[in-house]
């Protein structure tokens, strides 16, 4: 797959060189292919999703691994894993019919055009990756050997202290891995994001920290790829190459994240 993408995207690299990933504007009709707004969109949306889902998922995982008796824990874990399998199109549907209006009302003071914004996509993604973070973090906590906690308790530390000073630090590698993998999943999600992000090109804000884009519609790499442009683009070699170039960037990005997350998770706990 990697090879195909590389080969097919060669024309756009020739055409635009580095301004392809870094270029700010995308107007395919004038052969202008800048991917930066989409890269920005993908990253921002996934980042916010992780920021929202991370702490909640961690706290929940801490609860299930440290405080729940094993029967309850199995039940909760199974329920969460089940819920992790909800198809993304269903999340998208909920996003369209429920979340969108809610966000619109939320952002009234910013005078948004509609409920389709980067923020909407981010919130939806947060819900989608929550189960992933929870299960992986729970596994990470469980893999801390029981004797470590016992030794801390034997010294007189109470349960919270044993959790915070023993379990948490030792599970750190697994937790970071969980977050990275969840981030990767968020970046790669197409359907749900497509339905609520607005699909508006060229929305790169002038400063990195501006909150404006959250309130407006935007575009991510995945939402671009999932749109009708893909079908149209095939006729024109350069346009097609640009689309494939996007796919290539996505593939490389996610693969790197996955690889990195796995490396971290592999490291021994000591």
């Amino acid at each position, binding site marked *: 797959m990697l090879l195909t993408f590389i080969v097919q995207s060669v024309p756009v690299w020739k055409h635009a060189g580095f301004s392809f990933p870094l270029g700010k504007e995308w107007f395919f009709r004038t052969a202008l292919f800048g991917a930066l707004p989409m890269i920005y969109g993908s990253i921002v949306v996934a980042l916010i999703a992780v920021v929202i889902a991370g702490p909640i998922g961690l*706290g929940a995982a*801490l609860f299930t691994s440290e405080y729940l008796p094993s029967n309850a824990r*199995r039940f909760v874990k199974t329920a969460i894993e089940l819920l992790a399998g909800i198809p993304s199109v269903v999340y998208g549907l909920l996003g369209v019919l429920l979340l969108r209006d809610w966000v619109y009302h939320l952002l009234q003071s910013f005078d948004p055009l509609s409920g389709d914004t980067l923020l909407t996509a981010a919130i939806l993604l947060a819900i989608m990756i929550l189960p992933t973070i929870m299960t992986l973090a729970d596994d990470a906590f469980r893999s801390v050997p029981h004797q470590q906690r016992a030794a801390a308790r034997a010294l007189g530390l109470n349960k919270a202290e044993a959790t915070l000073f023993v379990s948490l630090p030792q599970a750190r590698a697994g937790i970071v891995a969980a977050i990275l993998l969840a981030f990767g999943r968020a970046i790669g999600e197409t359907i749900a994001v497509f339905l609520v992000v607005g699909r508006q090109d060229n929305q790169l804000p002038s400063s990195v920290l501006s909150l404006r884009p959250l309130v407006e519609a935007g575009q991510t790499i995945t939402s671009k790829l999932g749109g009708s442009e893909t079908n149209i683009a095939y006729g024109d070699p350069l346009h097609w190459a640009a689309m494939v170039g996007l796919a290539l960037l996505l593939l490389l990005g996610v693969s790197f994240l996955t*690889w990195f997350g796995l490396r971290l998770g592999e490291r021994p706990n000591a």
Partner: protein
Amino acid sequence: MRKLVNMALPALCGVCALLALVILAGIVAAIATRGLPAISTNFLLHEMKEAGVSGGILYNLLGTLLLIATGSLVAVPIAVALALVRCVYVTSPTKKRVTTLWLYLLNGTPSILFGIFGFILFVKVLGWGKSWLAGGILLGVMMIPTMAVALIDRIESIPRRYIEAAAGLGLSQRQIIWSVLLPQSAGSLLTGSFLGLARAAGETAPIMFTATIFAGATLPSGIKDSPVLTLPYHIFILAQDSFDPAASSRLWGAALVLLALVFGLSLLALPLRWRSHEEARND
């Protein structure tokens, strides 16, 4: 102070856990309440009419089932072969790690990329146009990691003494595979298959360029230019337009059916997963 933290921590974490459960359960509830009114035998057994405003989802359901069935036919042999190669024939630890890594990379690849790749390969290069077979193959490839990993974990946890006993009796490697490894891991194969099927059933992105259309197809004939209707794509298209309220409850109904399919398949995998959880904990 310490006592305060000691009490606050579980409370805080408990709130998180509750929040997570409530959100996710709420999602299921939302779909169920909205979709239930639309479910009836008519709905399930009739085809779509008027772009989803009336009629049922028969062909969508059949299409999805066809795709995942094809996918599993593709995935099972490859997953088994992969697992065996990695566990039995490959001995160097680095190669083992590389295969595992590759499997996880495959698993983590965004589904849209499969869609684009499939588009290039099947629709254009092979000239199949939109074809159910292309969709089935793509979904199958996506199922491979789930199945293979389940198998590999299982095979590696088979107690060495079984293998040693078999070898001691004089069985050859092939015989050991057939008489010890495969029977013992059949359960995991089922588990992995169900999980893979569940995941594949819900996928939209891999099939939207390659295998499915919104309207106008019933059952496929032949391979080229034979797309199918599918549940996820149906929902996807309808979700995009501002649409007729009459179609709305059918839309939820379709979503509910899809959800039921996915959950049903996942639940089938459950009893086996519980057993393997137990084993893992007893180690």
